[in-house]
């Protein structure tokens, strides 16, 4: 039979896991928490003369509940993302994964750039009716091509959006001020171009992010999880 203080300590521990795994589906979260609860109860059953100190030791041997919950959440998110085509889920998953290591950071960077391009392409379609003279596909000096906003200055000209200057320059933003003529390459075709570019960037980025997660994320998770073995504290044989 558990005394109140032990029950309170266990409940508090599990409540931290619950709180920090918000966003995971209730079914998956509850199952995970129930399993941890079962583990704690098994350990308590196997331990004679349970004191508060020993409960604290026991909970410590399971691990920091915040880290455990965060790792669980990332794991669940990546698992779902590997089977999903939702850009929102890809973005959230790579954001979490990006904080944990090099492969995740690379995936995050490319995903951000890809979805950034998608956003700019769709923004061009939305803003063209309101800023017809500023939104377009602009050809500037030095063969700079920009899909986005041009300030219409011939001296100190700046264009913001997806800027490309073949063969090497590519930015989300502006490649810097220039002087000289700027031509609109698309006219009213900007709607078609924006739509095609947006859809292409959206699909390519989503597929790429999913491929990265499938190919590298599970390996990364394995590393990050097993890292804790170096601080292992097997205490169940008390």
């Amino acid at each position, binding site marked *: 039979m558990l005394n109140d203080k032990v029950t309170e300590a266990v409940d508090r521990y599990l409540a931290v896991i619950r709180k920090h795994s918000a966003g995971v589906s209730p079914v998956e979260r509850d*199952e*995970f928490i*129930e*399993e*941890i*609860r*079962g*583990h704690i*109860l*098994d*350990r308590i*059953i*196997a331990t004679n003369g349970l004191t508060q100190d020993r409960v604290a030791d026991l909970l410590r*041997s*399971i*691990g920091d*509940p915040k880290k*455990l919950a965060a*790792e*669980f959440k990332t*794991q*669940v998110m990546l*698992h779902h993302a590997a089977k999903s085509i939702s850009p929102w889920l890809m973005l959230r998953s790579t954001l979490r994964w990006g904080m944990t290591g090099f492969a995740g950071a690379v995936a995050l960077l490319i995903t951000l750039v890809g979805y950034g391009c998608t956003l700019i392409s769709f923004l061009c379609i939305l803003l063209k009716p309101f800023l017809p003279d500023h939104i377009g596909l602009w050809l500037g000096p030095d063969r700079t091509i920009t899909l986005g906003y041009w300030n219409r200055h011939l001296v100190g000209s700046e264009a913001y959006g997806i800027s490309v200057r073949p063969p090497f320059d590519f930015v989300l933003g502006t490649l810097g001020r220039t002087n000289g003529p700027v031509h609109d390459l698309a006219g009213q075709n900007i709607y078609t171009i924006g739509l095609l570019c947006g859809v292409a960037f959206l699909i390519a980025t989503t597929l790429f992010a999913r491929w990265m997660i499938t190919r590298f994320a*599970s390996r990364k*998770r*394995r*590393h990050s*999880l*097993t*890292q*804790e*073995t*170096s*601080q*292992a*504290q*097997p*205490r*169940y*044989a008390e």
Partner: protein
Amino acid sequence: MVSSKDMLPAEDRIATADPWEAQLRKGSLEMAILASLWKRRLYGLEILRALESGSGLGMLEGTLYLILNRIKSAGLVDSEWVDAGSGHPRKYYRLTATGEERLRAMAESWSDFSAKINELIAPVLRRQELANVER
């Protein structure tokens, strides 16, 4: 043979573990977990005990459940809740056919690799034994 390191408490043993040794243990953890489930079903605490007694592999205990969750997602193990009369249900794990296949492949790779490495380090161990005898 029992080394002096084996006689230390678990925490001290891990704290003094060489980073290389820690890496080696990390790399074999998934295989050890799958192997503990070979032809039987176990719940979390039993898996931990099997790992500790069978391989000396220890870990933060919550980590085991994350690994089990991941290998379950990968289809290597299956689980079911069983009310075993302990007052609370326990989640038992068993290998799936895919898990058995994967474990066989891992075990074969491990066996080949360790046999070659053992051959390579045999002279080192022999020399050490000789030195011990001379002492």
